[in-house]
């Protein structure tokens, strides 16, 4: 019996070692440990072993089973390892990527988000108004004389109803002041329209970013501090900013703002980026009349307003030479903003 056990063990270990694949390994297992396997058969013979030898034979049987099982496990791991390695053959990590669809957000959106994000951190809330406007909100309330050049079918899109497509987002100032009492701090990005032929620097529909801050003690230092902070956040902390006096009907005093653009390999130059000014008392007066109250009494409140062209900012930011790229939606262009 002892010899038989040792013989079965040795034969089994040899068969396991020789098994070339998972199938022959399984055959080897079945032939030893299966229902009719050689070791199973020997184990069944335990009942005939004299009691005095049972301990020894039992131990031998156990150690044979342990050894065979360990050999089976080890061989199986080896075979798996070989199979794993074989499965890797032919995988070439240097082949290019299998493509996933990848889109992008439009650059004007990216720019608007950035600009609006800065202003929102400074306490400006988003605002909006209609693009089909009336003359009151687009011109009259903004202190624009009745015979101002902009109020002309040649320069502005009118409708037969007498309404028009807003020529600037400044109309949102009036809409918001009509709706909300001061203090008011808003920014309104949006589309504006002018009857300009489309060329490399003009669009007939373009985007502006409007800002307005009205309270009891808003002053030129607030205008200056806010816009400097905005432009430095937008163009870089070291950006030089200058304010040139200018004229707009709805602000007084009014300024145009330039930033010094430093492009590597080019002489630095001042570039106009925005218009701004203290809200003209006539605008507040128009709002009071429209609201039928004195919430915006120009004797009590002051404010500043500013506006800038988003296409222009995008062109400066990314070195875009032709404004039409921003409306053509060519994927070769859009992909660059992914």
């Amino acid at each position, binding site marked *: 019996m002892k010899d038989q056990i040792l013989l079965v063990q040795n034969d089994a270990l040899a068969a396991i070692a020789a098994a070339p694949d998972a199938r022959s390994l399984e055959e080897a297992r079945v032939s030893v440990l299966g229902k009719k396997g050689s070791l199973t058969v020997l184990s069944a013979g335990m009942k005939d072993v004299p009691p005095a030898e049972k301990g020894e034979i039992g131990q031998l049987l156990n150690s044979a089973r342990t050894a065979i099982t360990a050999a089976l496990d080890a061989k199986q791991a080896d075979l798996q390892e070989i199979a794993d390695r074989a499965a890797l053959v032919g995988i070439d990590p240097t082949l290019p990527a299998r493509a*996933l*669809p990848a889109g992008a*957000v439009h650059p004007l959106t990216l720019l608007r988000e950035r600009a609006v994000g800065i202003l929102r951190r*400074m306490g*400006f809330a988003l605002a909006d108004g209609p693009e*089909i406007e009336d003359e009151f909100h687009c011109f009259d309330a903004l202190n624009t004389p009745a015979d101002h050049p902009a109020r002309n079918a040649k320069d502005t899109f009118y409708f037969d109803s007498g309404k028009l497509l807003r020529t600037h987002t400044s109309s949102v100032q009036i809409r918001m002041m009509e709706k909300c009492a001061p203090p008011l701090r808003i920014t309104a990005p949006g589309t504006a329209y002018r009857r300009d032929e489309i060329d490399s620097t003009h669009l007939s*529909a373009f985007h502006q970013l409007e800002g307005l801050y009205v309270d009891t003690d808003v002053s030129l230092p607030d205008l200056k501090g806010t816009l400097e902070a905005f432009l430095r956040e937008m163009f870089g902390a070291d950006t030089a900013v200058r304010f040139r006096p200018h*004229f707009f009907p709805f602000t007084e*005093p009014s300024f145009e703002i330039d930033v010094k653009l430093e492009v590597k390999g080019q002489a630095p130059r001042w570039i106009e980026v925005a218009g701004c000014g203290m809200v003209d008392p006539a605008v507040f007066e128009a709002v009071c009349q429209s609201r039928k109250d004195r919430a915006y009494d120009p004797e009590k409140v002051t404010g500043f307003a500013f506006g800038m062209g988003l296409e222009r900012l995008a062109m400066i930011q990314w070195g875009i030479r032709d404004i039409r790229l921003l409306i053509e939606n060519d994927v070769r262009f859009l992909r660059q903003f992914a």
Partner: protein
Amino acid sequence: MNVSLNWLSEYVDLAGKSVQELDDLLTFAGIEIEGIHTKGVSSDKVVVAQIMEAVQHPNADRLKVTQVDAGEGTLRQIVCGAQNYKVGDKVPCALPGAALPSGFTIGETKMRGVESKGMLCSGSEIGVPDQVNGLLLLQGDPAVGTPVKQLFASDVLLEVEVTPNRPDLLSHRGLAYELAALLEQEHQTLELPALPTRCGSEWIENDAEEACPFYSLTKISGVTVQDSPDWLKERLVSIGLRPINNIVDITNFVLHEMGQPLHAFDAAQVGVRMHLRGAKADESFAALNGSSYALREGDLVISDDRGEVLALAGIMGGATSGVTATTTDILLESAYFTPTLVRSTSRAHLLSSDSSYRFERGVDPEGVLPAAARAIQLILEIAGGQIEGETAVVGSLPVLTGVVELDTARLDQLMGGSIELAAAENILLRLGLSAVGENLWRVPSRRADLQRHIDLVEEIARVHGLDKVPSRMRATFVPASDIDAAADLDMNLRRSLAALGFFEAQTIKLIAEKQLVDALPLRPLQNGDLVAVSLPLSEDHAVLRPSLVPGLIATAERNVRQGLKSLRFFEMGRVFRHNGGGKARDLESESIALLLSGPVAPESWSAAPAVATVHDLKAALQAILPGCPLQFTPREREGFVLACDVTGGDSNLGVAARLRPARERELDFAHPVWLVELDLTKVRKWLGRRRVVEELPQFPGSSRDAAMEVAASLPAAEIDKAIAKAGQSLLQHFECFDVFTDPTGQKLDVAKKSIAYRFHYRASDRTLKNEEVDAAHKQVLETLVKELAVVFR
């Protein structure tokens, strides 16, 4: 407006000011300089020099070392690269310290190791045209040491952009006044002879006092019309005007000197009496520019007792009444025309002139007669002749300015305390205002823009400069508006779509009428729903888009032309329509639209990607509206196939469809074009919904599959409905996992399809027993049989 610096220097001391300094000075006073053109050289340190010797530079083949006589007693050594001269020639020599028109200042230097004390100049280097390549060879043997500016007139032309509120700056004297104020100089006044006037109502009949409150006419007889003297021609040429004859040139000169337009009539060509009146309906006017204008009723004209239109008031003179070589007697007009009327007439006839430009912005009422006096002085001096009688005037000059109070407390508040009152007052004084009481300021007549406290503040802020104002930042908490919330949701949506491979398009909201065939608005358009502009720029931009889809199709079409195969675009933004055939007007709402066509992934070396179907479009929608119970319900739309209403629960989100195949072919699309347009506010509503977390299940569930044979045409939505009808409370959810059809009819009748569902059952309070699951499943299947007569396989 063109300004000659030489001319300007006659009225204000600009000595020692560089052009750059003047540019800055004006720019920061709110007067934009759009261009600077230099003619000739203005520096005294560019002089005539004679080349006495020229030898080869020891270290450079292309350079010579010259010794020149610049009239200094000793010769000067200058290294020069030009080749076109010979010893003995006279050339311009820039001595150290000379500022050249380019802005470059000459210094002493070493060139390749050899000292060079100045520069010999080409024509362009000193601002005169180059005639040869190389040095400018001076003709006529000028004396050495003579400043070259004596040989060539030098000047700087400034192109000045004057804002519409400052008509007082539209002349050399006006600008000089401003510069004197900025430079804190005394203003130089012009001494003029007295101009005696008389009431002219017998000669001049004014039927248009509103349009012309004041009109003057002076008759000068016996003038000799000929070319202007050189100085006068030079002045006009220096600002780009063409000299015509002495009389016309003088009126132009005075306009640009003083800002008051004048007009001279040939007295022989006008009637006995002058008549200011509105034009008649059918009247026409032959202007001196050679064009003829059909006048509008009410256009102000200068006419006479014969009824002829002699001039379109304030804008242009007539073709026949102007001054010519044969003119001997003239009538000189100087008037105040009301700005709005001049502007309206000028714009209506698309006719503008230097004269209308000033009248429509408003001339200085107190400058009307002085300008006449100035012109008369020059005419008598240059063209001879004599004044006949006194200047005839009708009407009275408008008074447009008065006394304005400066609110010093508010000035201080607005300026942030950055300017002392005395300094502010000094600015007002320099600008020509005069103090007439405590904080009361009389405004000069030429500054009609100064009417209110804030107008004075503007002047102070402008001259003081914003650089001297401190910066302040007062950020406070502001709660998010509804628009803030919407913008944030929109941005998330954009990012999701970009991650799904969609490109955001931004298209122009004005589209062509012919693009409307592609419109897929949320509700079909009715007659009268379109919003069209009255006067479009072109057919391509005639109506406001009622839908985003036409823009997306145009975008896809453009990209197809560039070879793009996989088309994925979206746009978010406003759409416009009247509603109910124009009953509700000008409705602006916000939409989001997607376009999907072609391979669902970019091509690669791996297996070719599938071509997008309606179910890919649905997948994109489901991805951006996670968890939303999206339903597509077929409903026909003109111009599209497979159109469906899209709902999410009880919310009508919008519409999805495929472009008509014929239209796809017309636009060269290789694959079906899938489109969806949704109401953005409803999409936001879903995205911004309040979320309450569902407890995770405590007990395991169990699933059952069922494959059923149904008519091939049965929509899956019908099966969904039938399952819902079963109302089985243990059924948690179910999904379709296979659809099988056999076009050959071998395995399955061609009129049938096999559709397989997996049903998931679970109870929240216990582990279900098999029998319970079986019973529940049986109930669902029986309902399906009852509702749809399905056959289970």
